[in-house]
């Protein structure tokens, strides 16, 4: 945990920022836990990849964005939209396949899209997001906007040819993009040592003419700090940045992943990483430093639970898309 122990009195805004980080991480955690239950109840179908354990990454990076910035992610994408401020009810409705969902129930867990909150999509082909996100950054350069693009993907995508093609072009053309590899140690069930010839992923990405670094992805304050610097760099220098964020998921690759733990990783390993759970650690920091009280944190927790319950109720009560929706949106006018 952060040893940052600035006792200096925080401004009201600073305090609120810290509580907001906590609020978002707790919301994501409760949301994801509910998703897991809903999946067991067959309210959520298909593939369901939960973000539990990795909340600090989405929350820390997204806290540093501005209105012209864009975020794109892979298929483990619930955390991004919640951190970006998408309505949790519409997010849950999408997972339930309802017409009130972010994508009218036609995308599902792996395919969120919420332009109003700058989320330009989750992509279900490993590495696919990298090409699209690079194109979004290309448009920011083309339009000479001050916006930047955050592109999240997993360590498995390090081995997609597309990543290297895009890193090369982003470097060539100086595109304003932050590539964030969420190195949670496993490409599905294959450990990074078995899928990457060089296990330092930041180093692997360091040859395309722009900076790269490794950060601790389990500490939201460290993530926020790094994000602030990196995003500032990209925004002002107009060049890409590559970040390897070391993180860990506490749950299986997907909700249907019944061999975990035991097959490719041990329960002990998970327990070891759980000690670095970003939520209790931030809680500890906030209390230790007298930034808030236990009652305040408890209230935040309960509020998050209420939001998730309300989202679930909304999703439950929403209608399925009408059948003629099948033929809509193949083309647009």
């Amino acid at each position, binding site marked *: 945990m952060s040893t940052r122990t600035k006792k200096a009195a925080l401004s009201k805004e600073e305090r609120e920022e810290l509580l907001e980080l906590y609020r978002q991480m707790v919301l994501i955690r409760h949301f994801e836990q509910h998703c897991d239950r809903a999946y067991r109840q067959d309210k959520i179908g298909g593939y369901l990849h939960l973000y539990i354990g990795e909340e600090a990454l989405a929350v820390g990076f997204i806290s540093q964005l501005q209105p012209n910035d864009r975020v794109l992610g892979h298929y483990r994408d619930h955390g991004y939209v919640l951190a970006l401020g998408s309505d949790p009810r519409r997010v849950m409705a999408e997972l339930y396949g309802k017409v009130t969902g972010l994508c009218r129930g036609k995308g599902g867990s792996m395919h969120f899209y919420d332009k109003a909150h700058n989320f330009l999509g989750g992509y279900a082909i490993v590495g696919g997001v990298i090409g*699209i996100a690079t*194109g979004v950054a290309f448009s920011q350069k083309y339009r000479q906007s001050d916006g930047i693009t955050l592109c999240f993907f997993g360590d498995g995508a390090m081995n997609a040819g597309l990543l290297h093609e895009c890193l090369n*072009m982003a470097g060539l053309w100086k595109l304003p993009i932050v590539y964030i590899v969420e190195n949670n140690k496993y490409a599905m069930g294959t450990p990074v040592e078995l899928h990457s010839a060089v296990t330092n992923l930041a180093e692997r990405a360091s040859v395309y003419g722009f900076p790269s670094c490794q950060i601790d992805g389990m500490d939201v304050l460290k993530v926020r700090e790094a994000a602030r610097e990196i995003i500032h760099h990209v925004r002002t220098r107009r060049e890409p940045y590559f970040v390897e964020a070391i993180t860990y998921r506490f749950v299986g690759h997907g909700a249907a992943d019944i061999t975990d733990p035991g097959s490719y990783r041990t329960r002990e390993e998970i327990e070891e990483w759980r000690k670095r759970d970003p939520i209790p650690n931030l809680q500890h920091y906030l209390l230790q430093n007298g930034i808030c009280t236990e009652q305040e944190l408890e209230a935040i927790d309960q509020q998050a639970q209420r939001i998730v319950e309300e989202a679930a109720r909304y999703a439950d009560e929403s209608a399925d898309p009408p059948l003629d929706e099948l033929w809509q949106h193949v083309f647009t006018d």
Partner: protein
Amino acid sequence: MATKLFREALREALIEEMDRDETVFLIGEDIGRYQGTFRVTEGLFQKYGPNRVWDTPISEPGFIAIAIGAAMEGLRPVVEVMTWSFAFLAMDQIVNHAAKILYKSGGACPVPLVIRGPAGPGKQLAAQHSHSFELWVAHSPGLKVVLPSTPADAKGLLKTAIRDNNPVMFIEHPQLYLTRGEVPDGEYTIPFGVADIKRVGRDVSIITYSRGVLLAQQAAERLQQEGIEVEIVDLRTLVPCDWETVFNSVRKTHRAIALHDDWRYCGFGAEIAAQIQEQVFDWLDAPVLRVAGADVPMPYNKYLERAAYPQVDDVIAAVRQVLT
């Protein structure tokens, strides 16, 4: 009306649209400084500069993906693939991304993208550069597929493609670039989904597109001397496809031949035959025949190559057969 080369007509469309709309830009391999393998983009880098004409590394998945992302943000990229045979590398970007993003976003995210370039046999380019490509994209919902046969159509359709808010696969036949034809003066566009009767006839309908139209015209000239009147339906766009014009032609001639360079097996001719038998079965007086490419990788030897895709005699033989 002036006569122009097919590639000049394409270039005119690019220039007019780039002048009209600043979000239109060109991206592809060797299209700028090198001015394009088939010289379609000749002079455009000099005219518009590097922010409108982007030379890329040889990274088809990469630059096509980038074009998709840019299109999602409202730009209108016109990607040139040096040949569509290279687009196989980017099939995931085309089929699994460009074609699906609108749908999976519930209609929220249009992808106004054009990918254009040559596809087809006849230049002795052998197995890996000679593919016809229409089927690979026409099969996927969410992609529009355009195959012009004349300079006038090429210009009007490319302008429509650039203004369309969907991914448009614009496929040019390499044997057409140096064909010449009359191109209307001034501003015009040609809508998608409107087939063009390139020749009126009463005896048999040849349903085709791209180079097939030229082939059908040559066959029709010869058959006319025997009193056989061939009607040529140029589909121009396979997606959307103007089936009604096809059906009306068959209602008139009662006999149909589907003609394309692409492989015969599961080729678009099979779709044409299926649509006709489903919709105008009672108007048929003979089975729908297909004249199409041999189901082999394209051989290098020029005589083998000629034998591997339709020639005029093949079309004439099919007409005779269907008229038996």
